[in-house]
């Protein structure tokens, strides 16, 4: 497996992680600078793989930053720039995975889990409030209503 050769590679990657180079791209329009900074943080460097384009010093990252800067200067939209990169490198380059059937679980899973476990918590609390000793059980109904109130807090 190619993983056996990973040691020197990883060491090289680690070293490159700490020895970046800077390519001062100047934009005339401050809005361009903002877009540029936001965009290059969203893309993954393919050569060093666990850094974004903004932080990487890999030659490819430098080239891609140059391409992105050029595209921003020629007023291409963010989506066009993303499309340009995805067409060449695939979804792998996006640190923000696109919402599509294969990533539904990723994007909506946490929300579903939150809903399901909230429902569980709700039932548990309600069931337990029904166990409360005699004086309290009378106001069972009221308790449930109060619980609704708390949730909105």
């Amino acid at each position, binding site marked *: *497996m190619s*993983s056996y050769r*990973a*040691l020197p590679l*990883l*060491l090289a*990657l*680690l*070293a490159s*992680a*700490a*020895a*970046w*180079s*800077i*390519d*001062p*791209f100047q934009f005339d329009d401050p809005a361009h600078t903002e877009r540029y900074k936001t965009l290059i*943080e*969203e893309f*993954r460097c393919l050569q060093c*793989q*666990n*850094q*974004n384009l903004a*932080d990487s010093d890999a030659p490819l990252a430098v080239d891609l930053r140059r391409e992105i800067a050029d595209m921003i200067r020629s007023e291409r939209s963010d989506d066009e720039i993303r499309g340009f990169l995805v067409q060449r490198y*695939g*979804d*792998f380059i*996006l*640190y*923000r*995975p696109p919402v599509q059937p*294969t*990533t539904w*679980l*990723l994007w909506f*899973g*946490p929300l579903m*889990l*939150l809903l399901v*476990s*909230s429902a569980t*918590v709700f*039932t*548990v*609390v309600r*069931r*337990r*409030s029904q*166990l*409360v*000793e005699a004086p*309290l059980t009378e106001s069972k109904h009221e*308790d*449930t209503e*109060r619980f609704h*109130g*708390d949730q909105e*807090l």
Partner: protein
Amino acid sequence: MIPELGHFALILALLVAAVQGVVPLFGAHTRDAAWMAVARPAAYTQLFLVLFAFVALSHAFATQDFSVVYVANNSNSQLPMMYRLSAVWGSHEGSLLLWTLILSLWTAAVARFSKSLPEAFAARVIAVMGLVAVGFMLFMLFTSNPFERHIPALIEGRDLNPLLQDPGLIIHPPMLYIGYVGFAVPFAFAIAALLSGQLDAGWARWSRPWTLVSWSFLTLGIALGSWWAYYELGWGGWWFWDPVENASFMPWLAGTALIHSQAVTEKRGAFRSWTVLLSITAFALSLLGTFLVRSGVLTSVHAFANDPARGLFILVYLLTVIGGALTLYAWRAPRVASPIATTPMSRETFLLINNLFFAVAAATVLLGTLYPLVIDALGLGKISVGPPYFGFMFAILMAPVVALMPAAPYVRWKTDEPGRVAESLWKPLAIAVAIAALLLPLYWSGLSLFLLGGVLGGCWVIVGTLWYVVRRFRTRPPGRFRLLPAGEMGMILAHFGVGIFVLGVTITNTFSVEQDIRLTPGEEYELAGHVFRFETVETLDGPNYTATQGTFLVSRGDDTVAMLYPQKRRYPQGNQMMTEAAIEAGFTRDIYVSLGEPLSDGAWSVRIYYKPFIRWIWLGALFMMAGGFVAAFDKRYRRTRAAAAEHAAPRVVEQGTAPQGA
């Protein structure tokens, strides 16, 4: 000779751990006191042997014994002594040895401080920890022996990765591991409880201080890692949601849920099976982290050199330990579950909501970390899940936590009146809103929903927590000044730390400015009200590197703020380049200068950051850590055996037959 002795000690330690794992367990089962009595001496012997092995490896590093493969791979004759010793855990094999040593230390600590526990229970706990150690020692001896020799010896070693030649990296891994491995203790308590059926408030009370101490170490370890990445990697960030960072963060999230659910189980005897499950999960996530770092299934900046054989071994180990524990849970937990009556408006409910969000947060990090692997395994392509995803999910999941956290301590156990709670909360809430509003002119320029929510949330947590302290002192009997119980003090410190942390994150994320510029010595650049004057560039020689050092004079108006000396180092042994950023740290802002590449005409590329409030992030984490330590030393955890036995008696609250959820 000494490395062989170390190797031999490790083999003996394995045998001792095996005895420690089997004999007391059998003794506890058959109520045989003599067999149970094996547990403690075995734990101490194991510690001695592993410590011996560790010292032997350290000796090999200190004396530059390049006939040991691991030493040759991770040291060099030029390496300063300090880094020779920290190189012991600089790579896979040695860090495993450190892992095992820390596990032995925890086991011996449990053996020493479990005198008040019922004998059978203590025997089971120590035995389970012995079994955990067996797996790690087998792993080390069969796939990753740090004492392997290379005959003839190499003349010169390769170098320790320059990234690791840093004081931060000397202490970060041990702290992190103490935290990680410490979760083996609540895990062992949970397994012992499942085995004995003794799953009650007393059990939670015994387990709690261990969990708190581990959690505090883990908090410190993660904070150190973040701080190290900030100053050493040279990109000015403090968290990147890298798989390995996530690997340490997941047990932290589960551990945070655990220390809160243990509170409920201890005080009210409720949520027992849930607390057991969290105890298992926190340790399972620690082990999963070990797998992710060492198996090569995920790409990471921090991963160790890895090979699939090692991955397979850890996977089998995971299946045995975690699969076994969860199967035991499925089998035994239904019997111990017994619902305790509570009303919706109670501390219990608030803590359950805390658990809800932390558990979902841990699951989200797990999902995001493993998702690329799942998609790849299913043949659906390769994707990346990075900071934009995690940042988004966390903002959503943590907002309710921040909103509810300061309120929870005001709510009474078992039942409370909403009116009373609201009455005690409106004042701190009003103060927090007022402060956030008064400060508005200061942060108006960067206003966003995130910033407003963060500032308001941070103020609310801090004010709400401080208000609670004031109220607690006010309602105490007059005339006698006494400190609050340590448990409560710890909670206050930790919650206060969360407030500091939230403010730090929000302000840093919004107001940090950075600029990549081209500067020639003699030139100036202005950023965030500061003038950076690039004075000179010179060459320096370090002990095992040569550095190009820039001198920057930072001034504000007529005042000199700092002289900064960023370096670019070259380590000739591995021919690696390192950027050493220069940082002027401050309570309300950091100034960060990093030297890039030489450009044409004597100019250099330079990166300058101005990062307001970034220290608050680590300061908040330190408060959280301190809170955990303080809480762990609450008096009630140091009860006598008699008191413990009294609590060990099953508390019968068996109303109804409804199965316990959660």
